[in-house]
């Protein structure tokens, strides 16, 4: 190695071949890199500034009230709960679907045509705009046979907007992320691990349950966190499928079921409705809720890093 560098007179001759246009393009690279940092920095700092200006503990713990005066509209406890409910529900539905599909595709994958169409099917779901998912969900959950999941009006018309409906459609947003992360984790397991398990007389099903799934737990966790982040940040589905009522409005009497069958709002729809584009027009509240939302999303996207890197260090 040293002999080689000694014989070639360093990298000098290469550097001398820089044309003016090459230098210009490298300069552009630097400019875009720095611009990227500036955009992200100013975004976060601006939200931080607005957040510290308007967020208070009261806002997080009081129910929203409908009022024309911005100072009397209460807090956003209900939207916060709504975000949590939807994120949990969406991932609860998406997790078995995504993990099941990933395991089937990597471990079985027969017949091949079905495997290929499942793969591209999930890709299509990832490419479908959430607004289309939202109004498809409205159509689906307005059907008579799904009326038990939402509110039925007097004329026997099914409302089709509820936490159930929104959660089911949100799961489709998280699904590609969970599927992708689980599949990557499964593919990273070397095949001799599987063979060792078979050599011990384990069946394929037992191998999947006892060996492969525990080994890919980290990938699943990453996918789930990313999926939750995406769900927490989606607005279109909430605006259309959750009714975007200010408070949680239950349907029926059962304590938990009534909330899930009822309507509500999330932080995203709260921000949307309180921006000048919505009806509330309370920009202070919108900034405060947006700050909380940004923190939630950042925590979901980067929190998992801390967790996995700490585990990796311990191992």
């Amino acid at each position, binding site marked *: 190695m040293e002999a080689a560098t000694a014989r070639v007179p360093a990298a000098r*001759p*290469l*550097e001398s*071949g*820089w044309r003016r246009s090459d230098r210009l*393009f*490298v300069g552009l*690279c630097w400019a*875009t*890199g720095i*611009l*990227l940092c500036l*955009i*992200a920095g100013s*975004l976060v700092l601006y*939200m931080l500034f607005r957040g510290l200006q308007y967020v208070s503990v009261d806002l997080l713990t009081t129910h929203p009230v409908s009022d024309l005066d911005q100072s009397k509209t209460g807090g956003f406890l209900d939207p916060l709960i709504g975000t949590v409910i939807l994120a949990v529900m969406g991932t609860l539905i998406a997790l078995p*679907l995504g993990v*099941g*599909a990933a395991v*089937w595709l990597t*471990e079985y994958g*027969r017949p091949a045509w*079905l495997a290929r169409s*499942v793969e591209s*099917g*999930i*890709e*299509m*779901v990832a*490419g479908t*705009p*959430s*607004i*289309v998912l939202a*109004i*498809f969900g409205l*159509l*689906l959950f307005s059907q008579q046979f799904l009326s038990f999941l939402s509110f039925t009006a007097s004329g026997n018309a099914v409302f089709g907007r509820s936490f159930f409906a929104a959660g089911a459609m949100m799961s489709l947003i998280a699904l590609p992320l969970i599927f992708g992360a689980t599949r990557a984790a499964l593919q990273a397991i070397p095949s001799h691990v599987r*063979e060792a398990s*078979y050599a011990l007389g*384990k*069946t*394929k*099903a037992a191998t*999947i349950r006892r060996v492969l799934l525990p080994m890919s737990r980290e990938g699943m966790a990453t996918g789930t966190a990313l999926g939750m982040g995406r769900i927490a*940040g989606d607005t*279109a589905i909430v*605006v259309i499928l959750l009714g975007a009522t200010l408070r949680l409005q239950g349907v029926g009497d059962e304590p938990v079921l009534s909330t899930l069958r009822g309507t509500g709002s999330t932080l*995203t729809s709260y*921000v*949307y409705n309180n*921006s*000048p584009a919505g009806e509330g027009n309370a*920009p202070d509240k919108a*900034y405060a809720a947006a700050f909380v*939302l*940004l923190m939630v*999303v*950042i925590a979901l*996207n980067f929190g998992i890093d801390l967790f996995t890197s700490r585990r990796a260090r311990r191992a």
Partner: protein
Amino acid sequence: MARPASPATGPHRSDKRAELLLGALASVVLVLIAGMVVFVLAKAWPSFSHNGLAWFGSGGNVDTQLIDIFNSPANPDKYEYTFHAWPLLYATALVTLGAVIVGLTFALFAAIFIVEFAPNRLRAVLEPVVRLLAAVPSVIYGLIGILVLVPFVGNHLISQGRKESVAYVVQLSGNSLAVAVVILTVMITPIMIALIVDALRTVPRSWTEGAHALGANRWRVVWTIAVRAARPAIVGACVLATARALGEAIMLSMVSGSVGFAPNPLDGLTFFVEPVRPLAATIVDNAEGLSVKPLGQTLYAFAAVLLISSLFLSLGAWLVRQPMKRYGVRP
């Protein structure tokens, strides 16, 4: 990847059951997609069939057409369906193409910077920055757009004379094509950067080292070898970003002005500050009218157009990825 053979004892019965169960779970997704396409197209059909190909053409004012449909008589035979979507389609195409073209240029330079030129410390900052920008919810971008950028453009960048020059056709308030394109670019560029960075990293070292050995400088090597080898992934990134931009509804409905107006490139600089109304944003704007049957059907027709275009985009992405598999470069 090579799949290890089943245990020597042959397939167990629990294995069969597991395979069937998991296969069924996987197929649920296919059923859902098929259901979605069929449901949405069936619901949208009346709007298409009443207008024929004129649906895609221009004519009349889109906003008043939407209001007429909303106010159509209760008698199903007299439903109002007349609709010419051209301004909306044109706006969608303008905003999407604008953001993808600007975003691609940025993403290419930024990805090359991250892979090749950034000092280690800056690279350690840039990678989380890209992830952060991709993760920020669209409603936050929309909020900043409507509360910061739109007033700035409306008050400082558009002169009074410019506002008066087009006052008889459209009001210039700052809700504009330019703001929409700028914010959409910020939203979709990180996705492209992440994909292009991944692709540039999978380019075999021997290729770039060979070019270095021939005396090419670092920029030439990246540009002529790495970027060229990653071309399929770059196209794939564009396709994904286009799908994202096409379907963006909330942010666009906040900053684009929601006026069914087709900006005219002949207006010069005014063109960039004219308001637009993309398809997806129109669905959100009219969300409360979904229960009015003819308006609902018209909005489902928008969704059908978006759905079909995103299906074609997925197909395009798949086609683009085929040649890449041949060279063993994974996306």
